């Protein structure tokens, strides 16, 4: 198969190209441009050391700049044009978005997702982390709860189709309903408004493992003395958890929460696979895909709206990172 060969060739060319770039650029810098010899040896070494970081950084900066920095500007500029790339419409795309019912629905849904999914995942993650902490089979339990992390959103959606299916012989929910005595199966994905929550459950199912792993490490990092002191003072297990442990891992909870929030704003696969955005379940990323390949102006406008929503988190992240470096 030629594509396999192409793939192998890319690996070889890509890897050896990278290695060759780093090796020879260093060699050229040290031997040809600023050789540490002759009358200016010392000065040359210093100069070479000033240039070298940029040699190391160049490929990364290049792809980051091209694929992530340029698109922020490129997308914004494109969103000022209509379906036809020569057709300048100014804020037209944004104005028509603001007037569109579908856009408002997906914005509100996205807002719900961004609250419910991080809250749910963090809650279950914290619960699982605390419960499995002192358990003999805790690690085994944890790795099973962590497992959905490895499953694609598409795969996860299919897995949950076997829970939600509109048929008491396939879907678990309808089977349980039938057992309790309801006659007709229902399609939970078509119940207005609540169907959104059934979709969110899938992402919570996936993300809980992530929250659990990080919170579990944070729980273990709590100094023993504080816990011992609380027990000596007669704290019951609930007080111990909510008044001693949770406050101490609050920074980690915030990190987990924001990480999942950012993820939620990008995920379109679940909605796309489960409902295709029908029955009032549209969210911004899936709404954008409706216009992708059809109306680039609209698509980029929606993408830019997602960017604006993420922006506060981004700034907060940068501020946090700068604080840590000092």
């Amino acid at each position: 198969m030629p594509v396999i060969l192409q793939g192998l060739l890319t690996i070889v060319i890509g890897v050896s190209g990278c290695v060759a770039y780093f090796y020879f650029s260093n060699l050229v810098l040290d031997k040809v441009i600023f050789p540490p010899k002759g009358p200016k040896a010392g000065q040359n070494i210093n100069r070479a050391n000033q240039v070298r970081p940029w040699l190391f950084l160049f490929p990364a900066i290049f792809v980051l700049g091209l694929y992530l920095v340029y698109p922020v500007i490129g997308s914004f500029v494109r969103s000022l044009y209509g379906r036809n790339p020569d057709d300048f419409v100014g804020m037209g795309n944004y104005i028509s978005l603001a007037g569109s019912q579908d856009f408002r629905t997906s914005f509100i849904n996205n807002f719900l997702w961004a609250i419910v999914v991080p809250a749910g995942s963090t809650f279950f993650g914290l619960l699982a982390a605390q419960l499995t902490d002192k358990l003999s089979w805790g690690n085994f339990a944890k790795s099973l709860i962590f497992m959905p992390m490895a499953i694609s959103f598409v795969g996860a959606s299919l897995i949950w189709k076997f829970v939600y299916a509109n048929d008491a012989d396939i879907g678990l929910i309808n089977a349980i309903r039938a057992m309790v005595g309801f006659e007709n199966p229902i399609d939970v994905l078509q119940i207005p408004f609540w169907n959104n929550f059934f979709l969110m459950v899938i992402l919570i199912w996936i993300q809980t493992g992530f929250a659990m792993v990080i919170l579990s490490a944070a729980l273990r990092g709590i100094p023993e003395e504080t816990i011992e002191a609380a027990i000596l003072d007669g704290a019951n297990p609930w007080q111990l958890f909510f008044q001693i442990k949770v406050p101490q891992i609050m920074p980690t909870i915030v990190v987990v929460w924001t990480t999942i929030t950012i993820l939620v704003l990008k995920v379109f696969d679940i909605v796309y696979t489960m409902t295709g955005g029908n029955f009032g379940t549209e969210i911004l990323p899936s709404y954008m895909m409706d216009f992708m390949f059809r109306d680039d102006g609209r698509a980029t406008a929606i993408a830019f709206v997602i960017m604006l929503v993420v922006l506060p988190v981004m700034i907060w992240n940068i501020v946090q990172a700068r604080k840590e470096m000092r």
Partner: protein
Amino acid sequence: MDNIAGTKSSLTWATHLSVLVLVLLWLIPTIGLFVSSFRDRDQISASGWWEAPFPVELTARGRTATEATLEGDVYVVTGNIYDDPEAQSYFPGGGGEVVAFGTSGREPGAFPAGEPVEIGDGETLVVNADGTYEWRTTEEPDRGQRVYFAAESPPDFTLDNYEQVLTADNMTQAFVNTFIVTVPATIIPILIAAFAAYALAWMDFPGRGVLIALVVGLLVVPLQLALVPMLNLHNKIGIGQSFMGIWFAHTAFGMPLAVYLLRNYMVGLPRDIIESAKVDGATDFELFVRIILPLSLPALAAFSIFQFLWTWNDLLVAKVFLPSDDASKVMTVKIADDLLGSRGGDWGILATAAFVSIAVPLVVFFTMQRFLVRGLLAGSVK
């Protein structure tokens, strides 16, 4: 303070029990998919996967034989319905007890087995529990009588679904394509990111702080922004929608996390080792290759698992940067766009396709879990 021991043990039990419930809740959906992928497709639509170990009542149809014996002026046809190839085809695992039978597709189980019934024109038919039948008719039969019946079918676990998914439907091609996308898109970013991370961790130059902040900021840029401009650019420079394009795209989209993770890890390496190597006259390049890379293996492993899972599981980038013909579809696109559309009701095939697509990530996940956890911790907790 009284009864502390008692409270403790009941609390321990509650903990064990609630963890068990939690684990089951998390596991059951996946088990359902797994079990369904091995079930015969007729059985899937007849009973839930949780009933898979039990016999299923299936409705089938067949035709009686035509060799009749004359008893007076009545032709009598006897035989076993399971001898009919059409009826057999419903029960690859062998037919069980016939529960009911009928003569119309609308009411396949109209009459209980073993009870002779009039079926019009003076004909009578009976199908017994063991499948034997007796059909009495006044005219010499030239075609067998249509018989519908409901019978217990023993649980039937088969690999047919896998055979079909892997041979038909182009799924093998999609599987190979997924690998072709994933492997270069995992290896190349690591190399590039490792050098950049080293520079950001251990080299002194103006603007370092700004660059680190930039990487942190880029971590959260929604890649939706990149789709339209980059696809247009790819089209303009002649890459178009191709494997080449998706390798570039994945390399770039994984870069912020790679640089961030690796830098966090490398900063924590002991300063003494690095400085003594420098004193011994090692150049930065040698230092990086001989000391930093080997020491950073856990972080490199962690990131490569991330990137592998992310590129393998990705749907969005593949939909945009790969052509939509069968020759270059990856598995996620194949399942989401083809199978869910054309085989939306074929649960066996859906389950199998999904399981094939998640099998590799699951293996990677369970064998490399240690590294994955370490990577997550390096990336999120400081």
